[in-house]
């Protein structure tokens, strides 16, 4: 009979009218994010970071901008780690490529901002910079002997000739040739 479907439909909506609601008041109540959630700001474990720049190179959109200095012991350190969130696809490649597993998301999904400039997020904190300063000073106090005599190693930025001693992350890399 014509109209039967209409009545059943109305029964469904009436049931939901009195039933439990699925949404909730967002800023007061928040959904918990799972442990694998990708989103928010990047957080770096600065003390572990070896400034290998793999994260920046893995990024498909060049969203990560790094500045690296080399200290007197020829160890590299980050002086700035800018995450251009406006370009970020949250694809997780930077984190997966991190050689020391020292990069992760802070899982805060409320990252909207009024201006584009606000999306250029500086990952390093003041503590990190303080730590950097200490490390630099310590290294300057105890400089490494120069490798090649004719070119003394000076604490100059953008001068990273040799890779650092490898950390145990190397065993993760797989060296298998494609089948063909």
């Amino acid at each position, binding site marked *: 009979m014509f109209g039967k479907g*209409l009545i059943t439909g*109305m029964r469904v909506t009436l049931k939901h*009218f009195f039933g439990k*609601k699925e949404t909730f008041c967002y800023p007061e109540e928040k959904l918990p994010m799972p442990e694998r959630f990708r989103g928010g700001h990047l957080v770096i474990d600065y003390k572990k970071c070896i400034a290998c720049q793999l994260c920046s190179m893995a990024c498909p959109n060049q969203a990560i901008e790094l500045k690296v200095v080399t200290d007197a012991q020829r160890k590299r350190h980050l002086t700035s780690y800018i995450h251009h969130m406006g370009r970020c696809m949250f694809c997780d490649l930077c984190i997966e490529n991190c050689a020391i597993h020292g990069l992760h998301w802070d899982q805060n999904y409320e990252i909207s901002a009024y201006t584009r400039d606000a999306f250029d997020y500086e990952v390093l904190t003041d503590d990190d910079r303080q730590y950097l300063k200490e490390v630099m000073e310590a290294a300057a106090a105890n400089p490494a002997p120069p490798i090649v005599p004719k070119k003394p190693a000076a604490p100059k930025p953008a001068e990273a000739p040799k890779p650092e001693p490898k950390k145990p992350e190397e065993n993760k890399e797989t060296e298998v040739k494609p089948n063909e």
Partner: protein
Amino acid sequence: MENLTVGAAAEWIRSVILLILGNELLTDVVMKFVGLGACIGVILTAAIVLTYAERKVCAFMQVRLGPNRVGGRFGLLQPIADMLKLMSKEDIIPDGCDRIVWALSPMLLFVPSALIYGLFPFDEGVVFADVNVGVFLLLAISSQSVLPFLMGGYASNSKYAFIGGMRTVAQMLSYEAPMVFSLLGVVMITGSMRMTDIVAAQAENVWFVLLQPIAFIIFIISATAETNRTPFDLVEDESEIVAGPFAEYSGMRWALFFLAEYANLLSISILTTTFFLGGWHGPFLPGVFWFWMKVLFMVFVFMWFRWTFPRTRIDQMLSFSWKVLLPLALVNMMFTGIGVYVWRSMM
């Protein structure tokens, strides 16, 4: 249960005015304006309450919470916020529109919607103009709302609006006919076109929804179409023609359309209550209470329709009116006539 609330208030206001003016005739004139003000007050209050109600009903049926920000947990001040937003919006006048017609349309639309309220018996004795051709006048006034839609659609100089305007004419004219014929059954039983008589007749016997169930259904369907609500909201069909005649209006002008829509929704609920649900009549409680309870129930029913059904297509809708509703209404009228004749001759 006589005039416990509204009537008493009116009496009191009248005595105050009489005290100030000291002239019976003048007082009556002033009282007419008070009544007018009361009617407009009802409309404005209804618009506020109904927007809130619609948002909440919609949200609850869609398993959402609905407005919950402005005015506490339940968003009670949401209509006020809406109103403020609409008032502070920029008034955009589209280039190339027919200015005068365009500006007149929302105002003219509001006139018939407001005018009908003068005829409604809200309670025993509480009616602004108890005309003896009430039903006739009512249908005459309500059919006037076609023109402003067409004006708005034509004058906006937009194709969407124009299609919407044309649809309005087709839709409202076709649903006018079954609506009138469905009401005629009621009029035939009552033997009067006076609204208060119709209510009184139901108070004496039974509600007409029991005597005229088919007319009731036809009336509900055509009333939905007349007020442009889903499933017959082809005039402002947002998925096809964006917003129809309202597409080019913004700010307060759009708010007037909005106001008229809710005024229409309320008036159609009041009509249903008056013609089929016994008006203010009911046991124990004061009439005003019964009246508004029935009206709000009808409002809920119309909202319920809106948030359950998809909308029809324009050709289906028109053919439904002419091929199904109108013959049905005529048949209903015929049987009512026979029934009334038999009953009268038996008496």
